[in-house]
């Protein structure tokens, strides 16, 4: 009697765990996509040339402006990779290289108006991809 009860209890816990993981993965998909969306809107304003954070010619402010613009794109890439990665996991397929390349292009192309932002974004994105590759390997 007690054995049957125990088995039922055990299988219930096992079932609840994937459900919980599924829920948290879905929440991660949505949250990361929302943050990605906010970063995309910020990028449209900053990298689309509609808004400049700094008008001054001061070197420090100019550097800050460029750094913010680069970071907005890099974080967009990171959050969209997380979101799409979890989405693919929920559909039962792994995030393949094709999608990473697509997010990479969509991120990099946002900086096409400014060669300096473009160069640093390219370097940053490559570093992130190298880092992701290492994580995957480990």
């Amino acid at each position, binding site marked *: 009697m007690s054995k049957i009860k125990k088995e039922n209890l055990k299988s219930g816990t096992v079932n609840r765990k994937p459900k919980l993981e599924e829920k948290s993965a879905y929440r991660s998909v949505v949250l990361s996509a929302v943050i990605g969306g906010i970063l995309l809107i910020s990028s449209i304003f900053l990298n689309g040339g509609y808004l400049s954070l700094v008008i001054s010619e001061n070197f420090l402010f100019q550097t800050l402006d460029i750094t913010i613009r*680069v970071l907005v794109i890099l974080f967009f890439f990171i959050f969209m990779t997380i979101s*799409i990665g979890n989405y693919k996991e929920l559909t039962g397929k792994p995030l393949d290289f094709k999608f990473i390349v697509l997010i990479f292009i969509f991120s990099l192309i946002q900086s096409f108006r400014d060669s300096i932002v473009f160069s640093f974004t390219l370097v940053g994105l490559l570093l992130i991809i190298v880092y992701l590759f290492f994580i995957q390997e480990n």
Partner: protein
Amino acid sequence: MKKNATGIIIFIFIAQLLMSSAFLIIKSYGTPIEFDVGFGTAPVIDGVVDGETSEWASAEKLEIELFHNLTNPSDGLPIELWVLQAGSNLYILARFDLNDHSSSEYDKEFLGILIADWDAGLDFTDAKIVQFSNMSTNNYSYLDHYINDTVYYGDMNPNGDGAAKLEGNQIVYEFSMPVENIEGGIEDVELDHGDTFNFKIIFGKTAIYPSGIILSNIISIHLQYPPGAPDLPIEELLMSISTIVIFSTIGAFFAFYIYRITQLKKEIERIRS
């Protein structure tokens, strides 16, 4: 492993910050006097403002001062500065008074206009100078020089024109210089419509450059497009269109992804039920 990952993330951002700082060298400087210059009738470059023909009537008129020290401006020489565009030239007039202007002290007087390229900040590389050899006999010459590391060299192919005339204590300097002139080569700054250029007005009493310069000031001139020309240059127009197309495409893909997320939620709910 977690420690390593944090380390790599910190390394990426520090590298990012360091690289973006290391390659950026932008000159910082004070804000020069800025104004827009439109089009009018071409004046005659002879050192005389002819009231009968109303030449210079359509010029942008500005009153500025030339200073001994631009970082600490005081006791400036007030001058009238008139600027206008006509045809494919930019015209600049400077008019001012000096006590005992006809005395031998000012025999070798000069007034020059140094020009910096639109993206060169205050790196002035082109000089147009009207240099008197004898003011009492009204002998002067127009000089077109290029500046390399503060040394003035005469242009192989001088362009533009300059003239001056003293009447009483008042002197008028007139200059003309070509706009959109691609034949100037590296010796001349190529002035373009739609761009803003820094000009340095220099004044001195001895024909030595740059050590003979005793007074100066900087103005910033935006050269308007000729009437009837499009407001936006073709490059800017293409850039704006590309920006809209690229960000709309990314936005559309993002919207499609959000739609897929909502579909995924429905799918999960369907499987669960």
